[in-house]
C-alpha cells in the first residue's frame, strides 16, 4: 500500500497534478481556483472556466448544464449558469469578469463530460477578461487543495 501511494505521488508530481488523500479529487497545478469551486485557465487576456473535480464529485451525476449566451457579460462572484444533478440545480459562479466568447455546446448533448473530464472536455465557458487583476484574488492549486481539505473536514 505504501509503495502504491509513493508511486501515485511521483506520478502525480510528474503529471503536474496534486491529490489529497481524503477525497482523491484532482487539482491541476497550472490553474487558478475560486472558493465556489470553479477553475480558470488563463491564456493571455482570455480564460477558460469550468468546475473542479471536487465540485463534480460532490454534486453527483450532472444531467443538464444551463449555459449562458455567447456575448453576455459575466462578473466575478456572480452566477452565469447552472448544473443539474440529483434533483438540484446548482449555480455556477464566475471566477472572473469579462465577456463570454465561447460556450461548450457539447455539454448540451453530453452533460456528463463535467463529471468525467472536469478540467478538459467538461470546460464550460471561455471569457475575454476585463480585469486581469481579479486573478490575484483566486487561489493557486496548493491553497485550493488545502481549502477543500478544510471544507470537507468541517462537515
Amino acid at each position, binding site marked *: 500500500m505504501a509503495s502504491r501511494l509513493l508511486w501515485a505521488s511521483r506520478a502525480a508530481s510528474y503529471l503536474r497534478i496534486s491529490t489529497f488523500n481524503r477525497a482523491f479529487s484532482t487539482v491541476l497545478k497550472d490553474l487558478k481556483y475560486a472558493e*465556489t469551486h470553479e477553475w480558470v485557465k488563463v491564456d493571455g487576456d482570455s480564460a477558460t472556466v469550468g468546475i473542479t473535480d471536487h465540485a463534480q464529485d*460532490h*454534486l*453527483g451525476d450532472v*444531467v*443538464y448544464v*444551463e449555459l449562458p449566451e455567447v456575448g453576455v457579460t459575466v462578473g466575478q*462572484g456572480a*452566477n452565469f449558469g*447552472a448544473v*443539474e*444533478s*440529483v*434533483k*438540484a*440545480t*446548482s*449555480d455556477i*459562479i464566475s471566477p472572473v469578469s469579462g465577456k463570454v466568447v465561447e460556450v461548450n455546446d457539447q455539454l448540451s448533448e453530453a452533460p456528463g463530460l463535467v463529471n468525467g473530464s472536469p478540467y478538459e472536455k467538461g470546460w464550460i465557458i471561455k471569457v475575454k477578461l476585463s480585469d486581469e487583476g481579479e486573478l490575484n484574488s483566486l487561489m493557486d492549486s496548493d491553497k485550493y487543495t488545502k481549502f477543500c481539505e478544510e*471544507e470537507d473536514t*468541517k*462537515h
Partner: protein
Amino acid sequence: MNLNNAKKSVLPIMNLVRMQGVPILDQLHLEERLLRCDLKNWCIVNVGTPQPTIVMGISGKPSELINIKSVIHNQVPVIRRFTGGGTVIVDKETIFVTLICNREAVPLLQLYPQPIMSWTGTLYQDALRDFGKFSLRENDYVFDNLKFGGNAQSITKNKWIHHTSFLWDYDERNMEYLKHPQRTPKYRSERSHIEFLCRMKDIIPSKSVFIEKTLNSLQKHFVLQPIKSDDISNAPYAPSSRLLTRQELEHDLLSTGT
C-alpha cells in the same frame, strides 16, 4: 433566566408563510424571488393548487415526460420550474412545503444536493415517526417503499431551496398524463406510477396534523415567525418558472413525432 428561552434565542429565525389554494405558478414565482432577492430563511406551506397542473424540472422535455396529445386536448397547464428534478402533476389535494435557507441556517451543512436532501429527510423523519415507516429513498420520501413526496432543490452561492409536493390524495386519471420517465429510482423496480405511490390521507389523520407535526420538527432548528404573504415585499425580479405555451407543446409533439 428561562433556559428554554435562552436556547430558542440562539436558533435562527425562519419566516413562515401559510397559504391556502395559491396557484402553483404563483408559489414558484414567490419562491424564486425569495431565493434570489432575500437573505432571510423561509418556510412556505401551501395547501392545494386550484387546478391539476403538470410541473416539470428545469431540464424537462415534454415529449419525454408527458403525453402531450391528451395534455393539449384537456388543456392541462404545463409549467417548467426553476429547480431540478422530475415531473409531477399537482392539484387541490397536494400539500406543498418549501424551505429556503441561507448558508448559516443549518450548522455544518454543505451546500450540495445530497447533504441538503439528507438533512430534510431527518426533519420529516422526526415529523412522521408516529405514522409509518418513513424514509428518504433515492431522494423520494416514502412510507415503506411507496412514494408520497417528490423533492427538488436549487442551490445558489449562499442559499438553498428545497421544495416538496406531498400527495395527500391524488386522482389516478391525472397520473395518466405522465409518461414513465427515462430516469427512475431503482426502488421503483419497474412498477407503474400508481403502483409505487401512496396517499398520505390513508396514513396520517388530517392535513393539519401533518402540517403541525412538520412545523414542530422545524421548530427544533428555527424560531418560526409567521408572516402574511401580502406583507412580503415585492422586490423586482423576473422569475424563470413559466407556463409552456400550447405552441411550444405542439412544436415538441411535431418535432419528435410522439
